[in-house]
């Protein structure tokens, strides 16, 4: 043992003339020291165990988040597929035009008239802020206060504020250039993701924006959290009051199609029932007009995602950024013969009048890289006739891209897909150049908004996110040298401590949404830069609960959540897992070894997780170290009784693609009633089915539809449909106690829906990562 014993040894040898009494006392001292050592050993061991769990819990969240990003690609591909393949069959056309109508501004109405707020009356009983323009600092502060008190700004003022914001943004350059000499310190904040509490905390700790207090907000203001619109309104208000001191960078979530999937659209439509769609349309414009980057003292680049080996700031400064409305829709090409006089050059992109506009907008297949066969043949194809073209599932697609990425063709994914086609409408070489320019510009923007740093050198397409690149330290070095800069500040990735350096401290990630995955999962941070450009960090964690929870409680909670999320993944891949298990169980005993279980999990899920460690959390009963896997699956989750007769693979597919389905449903639900018709549901499902090349019969689809329409009124409640995918751990219900909690009193806060409660329709939609947006 350590020095305690030596000490004790020494003491033991001393004899005092008083004899016994002293030696007893000395011995007690020795014992105490030994006790201390023991306690220390135990405690350190305990901490190490916690640390391990914390690490892999974090890994779970990150792996699943990245896996979830692929849903975007799915959606993108699916939309692209629809555009390329629909034909004049009445039902399908209705549905598809529904889908795309959403993304077009009404051509026949003048823009300004559409967003005119003046006719909107504000009732006397409205007690929220009544804004007058031009805004002043007091009004901005009042707005913050109002939102803190959970008030909602009236749609009239929302539209007015947004209108003013748009006007301002249009005159801003693509790259904000600011200096520390004007306002001594500049504060930079990362992703906020609709978490108003964090923004309020930042203002509390750092003060609100003012002439003396400059701020840069580095994108991703919206989605996931529940107060995205309030955050936007606050940021825009301060932007209007202090245009020289407040700077906003666009993030990848400032994108209307992403918003459909990640919750912002739903939030706005929910809060603004009458004018929500207008507000969203206006925001669509505003997002496209947000600046792309900010540079401080010509030395520090602040951008949401990052860079690639082809990033050229001079080029970025020149682009027409507003043309790039969404990263999920490649830029439109202007058809020369469809020029129409327009009120505003900004409207051109929306006034493509040709009847082939939809087809022409998509220049290449988004589902695979080979050039398309002759375009003309598309118009005559019916849905049934696509099998040869849609040859691959998503997974295969990604695998191929991964392999191709190994050949390091930069910016391959969303941006480069379009470059791959040799198939263009007949055009002159001029417009071919223009087309390539547009593609190049688009790639530049995607790279800025979507890239992530990686540890090894090089630059490879970011297959996980589907856009941008992974860039290495050598790319950072080159970039900084080329532009005579010293630091890149970016956001886009959640970091446990709110911030993290990499690339030799030349790249800083700053993330301002605390508790992003779960209460207690991470801190948020912001950074201050003075004229010396030395970063100074402040970290925080919103939610009073976390301050009172010990590290241990916080870990347990996060772990609980991560495991829940993981189980959903397992459920989504049930058929594949079953086949993998069966491969290890050739004799059909129903049992497999734990080791084989681990291999199967790893193989099917493609999630880089420590399966051996997770074993004890995911498997509770084994016989002789063998797992009864059928039983295990049964206990993993219960499904809705009504779905029990539905065929497993169908259910699996539904589950896997539920977020894409939900997004499409919400698009189709044009009056935002929360319901879609039987027929629309069937058609959507059929289309997705066709696209995925599933061989699911008409009959199964009909069965499915019938079982979902629980009240038999011919309409399907979208929310209810999505809720049926929320998994409940049967074990937890049966034992009345969480598998992962030892004592129920460990939780300070409100009971999680899955503990100590009888089965009921869960109402908590905001918790957990995979909750429907």
């Amino acid at each position, binding site marked *: *043992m*350590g*020095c*305690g014993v030596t000490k004790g040894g020494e003491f033991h040898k001393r004899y005092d003339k008083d004899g016994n009494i002293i030696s007893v006392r000395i011995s*007690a001292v020795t*014992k*105490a*020291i*030994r*006790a*201390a*050592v*023991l*306690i*220390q*050993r*135990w*405690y*350190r*061991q*305990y*901490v*190490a*165990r916690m*640390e*391990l769990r914390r*690490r*892999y819990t974090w*890994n779970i969240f990150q792996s699943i988040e990245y896996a979830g990003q692929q849903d975007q690609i799915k959606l993108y591909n699916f939309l692209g597929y629809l555009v390329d393949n629909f034909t004049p069959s009445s039902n399908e056309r209705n549905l598809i035009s529904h889908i795309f109508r959403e993304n077009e501004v009404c051509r026949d109405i003048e823009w300004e008239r559409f967003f005119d707020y003046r006719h909107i009356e504000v009732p006397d009983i409205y007690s929220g802020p009544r804004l007058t323009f031009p805004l002043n600092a007091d009004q901005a502060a009042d707005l913050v206060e109002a939102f803190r008190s959970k008030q909602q700004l009236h749609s009239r003022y929302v539209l007015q504020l947004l209108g003013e914001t748009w006007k301002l943004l249009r005159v801003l350059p693509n790259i904000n250039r600011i200096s520390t000499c004007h306002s001594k310190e500049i504060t930079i904040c990362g992703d906020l993701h609709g978490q108003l509490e964090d923004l309020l905390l930042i203002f509390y700790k750092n003060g609100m924006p003012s002439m003396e207090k400059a701020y840069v907000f580095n994108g991703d203001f919206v989605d996931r959290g529940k107060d995205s619109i309030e955050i936007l309104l606050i940021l825009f208000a301060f932007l209007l009051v202090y245009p020289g001191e407040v700077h906003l960078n666009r993030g990848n979530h400032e994108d209307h199609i992403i918003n459909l999937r990640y919750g912002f659209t739903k939030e706005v439509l929910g809060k603004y029932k009458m004018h929500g769609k207008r507000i969203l349309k206006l925001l669509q414009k505003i997002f496209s007009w947000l600046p792309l980057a900010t540079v401080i003292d010509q030395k520090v680049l602040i951008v949401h995602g990052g860079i690639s080996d082809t990033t050229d700031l001079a080029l970025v400064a020149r682009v027409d950024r507003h043309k790039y409305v969404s990263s999920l829709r490649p830029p439109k090409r202007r058809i020369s013969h469809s020029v129409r006089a327009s009120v505003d050059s900004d409207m051109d992109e929306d006034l493509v009048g040709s009847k082939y506009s939809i087809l022409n907008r998509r220049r290449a297949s988004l589902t695979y890289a080979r050039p398309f066969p002759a375009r003309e043949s598309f118009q005559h194809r019916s849905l049934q006739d696509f099998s040869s073209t849609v040859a691959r599932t998503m997974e295969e697609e990604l695998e191929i891209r991964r392999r191709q990425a190994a050949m390091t063709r930069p910016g391959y994914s969303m941006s480069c897909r379009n470059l791959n086609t040799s198939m263009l409408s007949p055009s002159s070489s001029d417009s071919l150049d223009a087309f390539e320019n547009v593609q190049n510009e688009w790639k530049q923007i995607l790279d800025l908004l979507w890239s992530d740093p990686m*540890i090894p050198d090089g630059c490879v397409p970011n297959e996980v996110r589907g856009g941008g690149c992974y860039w290495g330290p050598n790319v950072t070095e080159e970039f900084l040298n080329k532009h005579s800069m010293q630091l890149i500040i970016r956001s886009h990735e959640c970091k446990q401590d709110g911030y993290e350096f990499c690339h030799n401290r030349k790249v800083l990630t700053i993330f301002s949404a605390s508790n992003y995955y779960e209460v207690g999962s991470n801190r948020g941070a912001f950074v201050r830069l003075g004229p010396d450009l030395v970063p100074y960090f402040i970290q925080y964690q919103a939610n009073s609960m976390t301050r009172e929870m*010990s*590290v*241990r409680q916080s870990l347990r909670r996060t772990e609980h959540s991560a495991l829940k999320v993981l189980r959903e993944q397992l459920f989504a891949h049930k058929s594949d897992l079953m086949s993998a298990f069966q491969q290890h169980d050739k004799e059909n005993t129903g049992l497999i070894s734990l*080791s084989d279980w681990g291999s199967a999990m790893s193989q099917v899920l493609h999630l880089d997780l*420590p*399966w*051996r*460690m997770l074993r*004890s959390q995911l498997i509770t009963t084994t016989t002789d170290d063998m797992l009864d896997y059928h039983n295990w699956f049964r206990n993993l989750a219960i499904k809705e009784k009504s779905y029990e007769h539905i065929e497993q693979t169908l259910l699996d597919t539904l589950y896997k693609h539920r977020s894409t389905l939900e997004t499409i449903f919400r698009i189709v639900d044009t009056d935002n009633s929360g319901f879609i018709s039987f027929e629309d549901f069937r058609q959507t499902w059929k289309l997705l089915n066709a696209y995925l090349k599933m061989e699911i019969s008409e009959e199964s689809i009909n069965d499915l539809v019938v079982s979902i329409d629980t009240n038999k009124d011919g309409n399907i409640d979208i929310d209810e449909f999505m809720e049926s995918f929320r998994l409940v751990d049967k074990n937890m219900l049966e034992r009345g106690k969480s598998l992962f909690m*030892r004592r129920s009193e460990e939780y300070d806060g409100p009971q999680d829906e899955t503990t100590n409660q009888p089965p009921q329709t869960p109402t908590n939609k905001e918790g957990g990562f995979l909750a429907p947006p």
Partner: protein
Amino acid sequence: MAEERALAGVSEVQKKIRSAFDVFDHEQNQTVDVREIGTIIRSLGRFPTEAELHDVIAEIEEEEPAGFIRFEKFLPTMSRILMENKLRPVPEDLLLQAFEVLDQQKKGHLDPEELSRYLTQEGDPFSQEEMEEMLSAALDPEKNLIFYRDFVSMMTADEPW
């Protein structure tokens, strides 16, 4: 048969070590920061003192200490530790007794100041941070006392795997 089992046992142990190591191998290049070795060894259910830890590190370090440890050096040493059951856990009841020793008046609880003094000054002293963290887990905030019996149950509840 026994031999097969023995071999299987060895490979199980190695897989365990591999798993734990991988969690801390951030760059996916078979190395971990030397400062994480203690955590890894402990997370494998071992209870080294600081001195024992230093000995292990000295054994597996590179000739020119470079701040990282390679898996190929870690594996044999760690396998041996596990197979020979070295650095083994102290039984839980001894842990409780340790607290009781410090609680001379047998009150059933300890003063945070008292405990801090012992743990930050004796044996393998805790850093200020470690002490604060332990207190946040062990201290009853209302009474400002450490009810060590509960605390011991908590620390020993999770099975090391």
